[in-house]
């Protein structure tokens, strides 16, 4: 095998398919589909109502195809499978009962779930297609009062919390994809950190799409009560298929007084091939509400995969002195498209937000930053600092910045800095002249460019993210 072949294989090592018997419902979407999902999942009536309300609203909405800087063929929503779950026993008493094939799949992805091999100090909820197959360290967390479980379990075991917070940050009618998710979401993760508790370990969810025909519609809800702290990580991969798959997730974060939530994502969905065939449509709504005073929500994302990324992790800074942060690296190569950024909505007094966005475009990809900073009339003394840097590799790619600034309070200050640069031949030559190969030189330059964002990631994730960027850019220079 030639080196080039080896490299191209190395490029996406998560592209395998797990051969497993699944419980799949027929294609298409209607009220009956929703009733079927509710029945499969044994959900209470209030969930059915929540879903139907969202669905009926969704029918009146139009897909946001015009304002984002992305293009794709018409999606036939009747051709998608909205529920696909690996067959299993009704209720799992322990991890030992999880299908060994699934355990092997996650182990191959670097996420061992069995007790002996579990990642130290990281609790994992593993989501396979439509359902959560296992959650580790549940009992240990429970001792601290921390709830970390699949959304299905949360609806069953903590209905009051779910009723109170589900849809409280992203309403069912928020946008086209959020409405679709609210109607059909099948699983996801729920985290609840009670008052005054610092979560003793990192919590994480690993999402895996396996079925070539199914979409993944998961829901994450994190509630941090007064004075609590939590750091949450999210990772995603999917097999290589030449058909596009839809991933429309909703993530809601709620931080009460003095609470802090740190949410980190390394997104590595299958991106399609060099010509743009296949890959995930990643249409995601992520939003956090700093509901309490002095609360803080920090988003860090490293977006490297997906054929199209459409996501704007945002913060509603409602509590006085609350803080919102958005640190992003978005890398596009080949025919990938990304329109990503954030919204910082300043409502409370002395609220502060920081936006650091690093966009890297290679191949013939298109990479846009889109961000809104909105300071409402009562947000006395609000401050924002935004820095958007783009780096171009080669001359067939594009980088755009679309900043929107709306300020309705004179005592606030909003700063915006932007830059666009190119990896120069001189820079590469300089590093090569010191004995560093061209591939490593590109990695080094890119990692330096992204340093401010990587510093925000938990250690293991930062290492993984650096390695990932290097792999993604292999062969894109020279």
């Amino acid at each position: 095998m030639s080196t080039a072949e080896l490299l191209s294989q190395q490029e996406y090592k998560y592209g395998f398919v797990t051969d497993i018997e699944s419980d799949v419902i027929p294609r298409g979407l209607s009220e009956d589909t929703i009733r079927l999902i509710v029945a499969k999942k044994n959900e209470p009536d209030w969930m059915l109502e929540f879903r139907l309300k969202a669905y009926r609203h969704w029918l009146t909405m139009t897909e946001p195809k015009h304002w984002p800087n992305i293009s794709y063929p018409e999606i036939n929503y009747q051709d998608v499978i909205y529920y696909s779950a690996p067959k299993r026993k009704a209720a799992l008493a322990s991890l030992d009962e999880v299908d060994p094939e699934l355990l092997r799949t996650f182990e191959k992805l670097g996420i061992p779930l069995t007790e002996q091999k579990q990642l130290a100090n990281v609790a994992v909820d593993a989501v396979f297609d439509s359902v959560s197959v296992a959650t580790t360290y549940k009992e240990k967390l429970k001792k601290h009062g921390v709830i970390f479980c699949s959304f299905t379990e949360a609806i069953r075991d903590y209905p009051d919390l779910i009723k109170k917070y589900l849809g409280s940050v992203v309403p069912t009618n928020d946008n086209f994809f959020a409405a679709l998710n609210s109607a059909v979401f099948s699983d996801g993760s729920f985290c609840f950190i009670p008052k005054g508790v610092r979560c003793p370990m990192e919590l994480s969810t690993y999402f895996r799409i396996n079925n070539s025909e199914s979409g993944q519609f998961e829901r994450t809800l994190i509630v941090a009560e007064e004075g609590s702290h939590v750091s949450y990580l999210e990772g995603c991969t999917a097999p290589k298929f030449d058909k596009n798959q839809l991933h429309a997730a909703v993530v809601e974060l709620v931080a009460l007084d003095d609470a802090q939530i740190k949410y980190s994502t390394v997104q590595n969905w299958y991106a399609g091939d060099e010509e743009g065939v296949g890959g995930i449509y990643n249409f995601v709504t992520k939003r956090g509400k700093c509901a309490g005073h002095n609360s803080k929500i920090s988003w860090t994302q490293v977006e490297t995969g997906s054929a199209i990324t459409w996501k704007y992790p945002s913060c509603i800074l409602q509590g006085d002195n609350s803080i919102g942060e958005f640190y992003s690296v978005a890398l596009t190569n080949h025919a990938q498209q990304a329109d990503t950024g954030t919204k910082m909505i300043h409502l409370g007094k002395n609220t502060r937000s920081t936006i650091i966005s690093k966009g890297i475009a290679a191949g013939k990809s298109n990479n846009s930053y889109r961000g809104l900073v909105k300071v409402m009339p009562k947000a006395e003394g609000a401050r924002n600092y935004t820095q958007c840097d783009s780096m171009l590799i080669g001359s067939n790619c594009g980088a755009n910045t679309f900043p929107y600034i709306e300020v309705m309070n004179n005592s606030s200050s909003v700063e915006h800095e932007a830059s666009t640069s190119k990896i120069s031949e001189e820079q590469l030559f300089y590093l090569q002249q010191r004995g560093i190969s061209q591939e490593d030189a590109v990695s080094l330059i890119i990692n330096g460019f992204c340093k401010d964002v990587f510093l925000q990631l938990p250690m293991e994730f930062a290492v993984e993210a650096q390695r990932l960027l290097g792999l993604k850019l292999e062969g894109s220079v020279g």
Partner: protein
Amino acid sequence: MLEIKNLHAGIDGNEILKGINLTVNKGEIHAIMGPNGSGKSTLAKVLSGHPAYQVTKGEVLYEGKNLLELAPDERAREGIFMAFQYPIEVPGVSNAQFLRLAYNEKRKHLGEEELDPLEFKDLLKERAKVVEMDASFMTRSVNEGFSGGEKKRNEILQMAVLEPKLAVLDETDSGLDIDALRIVAGGVNQLHNANNAVILVTHYQRLLDYIVPQFVHVLANGRIAKEGGKELALELEQKGYDWLKAAPENNGAGAGAN
């Protein structure tokens, strides 16, 4: 160590080097001088493999191997080092991180064990003394926000870490004040020994007061117009370069230093 035979090279189709012959042996220091545009820097860049320059004719043997076949990073790992006239900034990458990567690439190439960050820190601290650089430079991004003098000292620090067999210093003296020049030259002198060689590319005689070459080659119009010992540099200092341009070219084939 290095044998350049009838080397023709240029950029964007313009021939700049028009038949260079030069031999450099272990333990030697050669100075390449000449007026602006004579091809001095082009020679340095061709030796280090800059992709913008094309070799159209001739050959370069380095330790008996065809140097021109090697990629720039391979040349570097084989022991060729170029100190840049304009060192490049690499934002976000610390000097220590960059140097360790480069150093370990060389060790890997030699089949030696790589150094971990702590081991490397000790080595770096030791080598930094050569150019009187303190620890604060190691955590700063490569050349970012460095003064002209600091950048040049950083080049010599890299040389000290990588211990090249053949170092090509491209106008390392340009833009240096007298103190920085003394430090940089002192560094090169400490690093030079009987097993390596140095090629100094310079416009001015000044540097040669500090680093004394055995051989001086004067380039004009892409050819070696005159060669001699260190006294030739002093002659140039007095007369300038104009008299050379008028002088007949004496650079026939085989007119190397040895």
